[in-house]
C-alpha cells in the first residue's frame, strides 16, 4: 500500500513539474511572437505572399517573430471559437465573414482612420461606428471562360442577359464541348445562385436612403417565398442545372471544378477572381477571359465586388497590451510594395491601397497575365455591384452561402418543389439570424 501511495505521489509530482516546465518553455519566444492566421493550404501564391510579409515584418521589427497559423481551406470559425474559449486568439486574424461576431464579442481592436489614409485605402462602412479590418485588394466575382471553346460557338463577348448566357451555353454544348464545370458537393455549389440573387434582388448601386432587400427581409416585409423575382431566380436555376450539369456533379467539389476547367474540359466556370492566382502553378496553357455576371432582369452585366466592406478578405487585430503595437506593425507590413505585389499576384486581386506603388497582379506566365489583363479591362468596362455585401449590418447571415449551396444540391437531387426550396432559404435565414 505504502509503495502504491509513494508511486502515486511521485507520479503526480512528476506530472506537475512536467506541466510547469512545458509552460515555461517557449514563454519568452511567445512574448515576442505575433501569431497570424491565413488560409494557405496548398496554394503556392498564398505561401509566397506570407513569406514575403513575414520577412518584411521581422526585418523592420528586430527581435520579433511572425508565426503562421495555416487554416488551410477552413474559414476559421471553429478555430476562433476554441481560441476564444481558451483566451488566446492569435494577434492578427483573417476575418472572413466573422467580423461582426468577433466585434460583438469584444475581441477586436478598432483601427483609426489614419491607418487607412496612410495607404490610400477607402474607408469601409463602419460597424456600430467602428472600423476594424484592414482592407486588402479589390476582389471581384464573375465568370471565367475558355476563350477557344466560346469562340468555337461564335461567342466572343460577354453575354449581357441570362437568356443570352443560356443560349450561348447551348451552342457550346452543341459543338461537343462541356459547357460548364460545376461541382455540387461543397460551398462552390452556391455560386450561380449567389450571382443571381446578388444581381437581381439587390440594387446595383445601393441607395443609403432606401432599405436593401436584406433590411426589408429582416423587417418581415419581403421573403423568398413571396418575392416573384426570387421565384424566377429559382426557376432559372432549375433550368440551368437541368440543361448543363451532368449526372454525378454531387460527387464533385471545388478541386474537381478547378481540375476540369484548367484541364480544358469545360468552357465556363462561375468562380471568383482568385482563380487567377492558380493559373501559373497549374501551368494552364490556354487563354481564359473573365466576364461579368449577366442579368436576369435586363440590367447591365456587372462583376460582384466582395471586398469593399469589413468582411471577406480582410485582416484585423485582437492584440492587447504591448503586442498591439506590433500587431499593427504586421498590418502595416502587409502594404510594403513587395509584399502587397505578392498578395495581388497570389490572390489575383486588384489594387485597393492607392498610395502603395504597385500595379495590379502580374505574372511571367503568359496565360495568367492575359487573364489579369482581361479582368482589368472588363472591370473597367463593366464595373461592379456590391450585391448583398452592403455592410456588416446589412447583409444576409454568413451561413447563407451554405444555404444557397444546399438549395442547389436539392435541385440536383431532383427537388422541383420551388415553394419548398424558397421556404428552405427563408427558414435558414431566420434560424441563422437568431445566432447573430
Amino acid at each position, binding site marked *: *500500500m505504502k509503495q*502504491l*501511495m509513494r508511486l*502515486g*505521489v511521485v507520479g503526480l509530482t512528476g506530472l506537475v513539474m512536467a506541466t510547469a516546465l512545458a509552460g515555461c518553455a517557449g514563454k519568452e519566444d511567445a512574448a515576442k511572437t505575433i501569431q497570424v492566421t491565413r488560409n494557405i493550404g496548398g496554394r503556392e501564391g498564398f505561401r509566397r505572399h506570407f513569406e514575403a510579409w513575414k520577412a518584411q515584418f521581422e526585418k523592420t521589427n528586430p527581435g520579433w517573430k511572425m508565426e503562421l497559423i495555416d487554416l488551410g481551406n477552413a474559414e476559421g*470559425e*471553429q478555430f476562433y*471559437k476554441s481560441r*476564444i474559449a481558451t483566451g488566446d486568439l492569435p494577434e492578427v486574424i483573417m476575418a472572413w465573414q466573422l467580423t461582426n*461576431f*468577433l466585434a*460583438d*464579442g*469584444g*475581441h477586436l481592436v478598432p483601427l483609426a482612420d489614419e491607418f487607412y489614409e496612410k495607404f490610400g485605402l477607402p474607408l469601409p462602412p463602419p460597424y456600430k461606428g467602428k472600423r476594424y479590418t484592414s482592407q486588402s485588394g479589390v476582389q471581384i466575382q464573375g465568370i471565367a471562360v475558355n476563350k477557344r471553346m466560346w469562340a468555337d460557338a461564335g461567342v466572343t463577348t460577354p453575354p449581357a442577359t441570362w437568356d443570352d448566357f443560356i443560349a450561348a451555353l447551348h451552342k457550346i454544348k452543341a459543338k461537343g464541348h462541356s459547357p460548364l464545370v460545376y461541382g*455540387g*458537393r*461543397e460551398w462552390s455549389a452556391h455560386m450561380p445562385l449567389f450571382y443571381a440573387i446578388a444581381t437581381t434582388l439587390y440594387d446595383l448601386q445601393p441607395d443609403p436612403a432606401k432599405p436593401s432587400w436584406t433590411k426589408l427581409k429582416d423587417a418581415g416585409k419581403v421573403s423568398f417565398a413571396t418575392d416573384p423575382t426570387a421565384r424566377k431566380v429559382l426557376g432559372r436555376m432549375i433550368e440551368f442545372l437541368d440543361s448543363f450539369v451532368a*449526372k*454525378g*456533379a*454531387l*460527387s*464533385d467539389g471545388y478541386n*474537381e471544378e478547378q481540375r476540369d476547367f484548367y484541364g480544358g474540359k469545360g468552357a465556363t466556370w462561375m468562380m471568383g477572381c482568385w482563380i487567377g492566382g492558380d493559373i501559373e502553378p497549374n501551368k494552364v496553357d490556354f487563354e481564359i477571359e473573365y466576364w461579368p455576371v449577366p442579368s436576369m432582369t435586363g440590367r447591365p452585366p456587372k462583376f460582384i465586388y466582395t471586398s469593399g466592406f469589413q468582411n471577406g478578405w480582410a485582416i484585423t487585430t485582437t492584440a492587447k497590451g504591448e503586442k498591439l503595437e506590433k500587431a499593427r506593425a504586421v498590418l502595416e507590413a502587409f502594404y510594403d510594395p513587395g509584399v502587397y505585389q505578392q498578395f495581388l499576384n497570389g490572390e489575383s486581386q486588384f489594387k485597393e491601397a492607392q498610395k502603395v506603388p504597385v500595379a495590379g497582379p502580374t505574372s511571367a506566365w503568359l496565360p495568367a497575365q492575359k487573364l489579369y489583363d482581361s479582368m482589368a479591362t472588363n472591370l473597367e468596362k463593366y464595373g461592379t455591384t456590391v450585391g448583398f455585401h452592403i455592410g456588416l449590418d446589412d447583409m444576409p*447571415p454568413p*451561413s447563407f452561402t*451554405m444555404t444557397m449551396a*444546399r*438549395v442547389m*444540391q*436539392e435541385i*440536383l*437531387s*431532383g*427537388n422541383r418543389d420551388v415553394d419548398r426550396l424558397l421556404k*428552405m432559404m427563408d*427558414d435558414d435565414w431566420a*434560424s*441563422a439570424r*437568431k*445566432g*447573430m
Partner: protein
Amino acid sequence: MTSVPEAGLQPEHRRAKRVAAVREGLASLVLCGPAVLVYVGFIVLPAILGFAYSLTDWTGWTRWPNYVGLANFRELFHDTRFLAAIRFTLFETMLLVLFFTVGAMILAVLLDRLRRLKGLIRALFFYPYILSILVSALLFQYLANYREGALNTMLRALGLGAAAQDWMGDPALVPYFIFALVAWSGLGFFSTLYLAGLQTVPNELYEAAAIDGAGPLSVFVRIQFPMLIPVITTASVLALITGVNLFSQIVVTTQGGPGYRTFTVGYYIYWLGVLNNRQGYASAVSFVTFAALVGVAALQVALLRRKAVQL
C-alpha cells in the same frame, strides 16, 4: 465473517483499525481521485453546463450568454428540420440495430464454426473497426465518387456503366451509403461481442445436443440464441447509441447533404451550434436528445433483461 463490537477492542487495536481505515481512504483517493476528477471535469460538468446553455441564446462568440428561459425548448417543438433529422436518424438507427444484433450474431456463429484460418478470418472482419472513423469515411467517400470511385470504375470495367450511380449524391441511395459505412466499420466489433458470448456456452450443452442428434440450426435456436440474449441486450444498446450518435461519418462524407437529406440529430446540433452560432438552441436539442436516448436505452435493457437466460 464475524463482526467484533468496537467497544470490545483494545485501544491499540482500535488505533490500528483507524489508521488502516485512513490509509485505505487515502489509497482510494489517490487511485480513484484522478479518474473521478477527469470524469467530473469532462463529462459531468459539461453535461450540467450544456443544460445551463440550453436556457440561453449564447452564440459562442461572447463570454457571457443571455438567459432566455425555456424559449429554446418551445422552439424545438415546432422545428421541422429537427423532426426531419430525427426521422433520418431513426431510420439509420433501425437499420444499424437490426444489422448489429442479427447480422453480427449470424456472422459470429459462422465464424465460431470455422475450422481453418479462424484467427486470420476473424482479424479481417475486425480490421475495419481499428481504423479511425475519419479514415473509414474518407475511404467510402472515395469508393462512392461518381467519376473516379472504385465502385463505378469497377462497374464500367465490367461493361455495366449504365448502372454507375452517384452513391453519395442520390437521395434514394445516400441513406444506405451511410448505413454501409457504419455497418462495415462496426461489424467486427459487434461480431466479436457475440464471439465472446459464444465462448461462455458450456461444452456440456453442445455435447448433450450432439447426443440428442440436434443439427446446427437447432443448436443455434435452442442453445446459442438463448445464451446470447445478454449479449444481444448489450449489442442492441450499443447499436442504438451508434445510430443516434451518427455524426463524424456525416461530417466527413455528406455534410448533411445533398441538400438537407442526411441531417442526423448529431449533425443538426453541430449545424446549429457551430455553423449557425446557435449554441444555446443546439444545447437544448442535445439535452432533449440525451434524455430521449437514456429513456429508450433503459426501456430496451428492461425488456431484454426479462428474456435473459439464467444458468
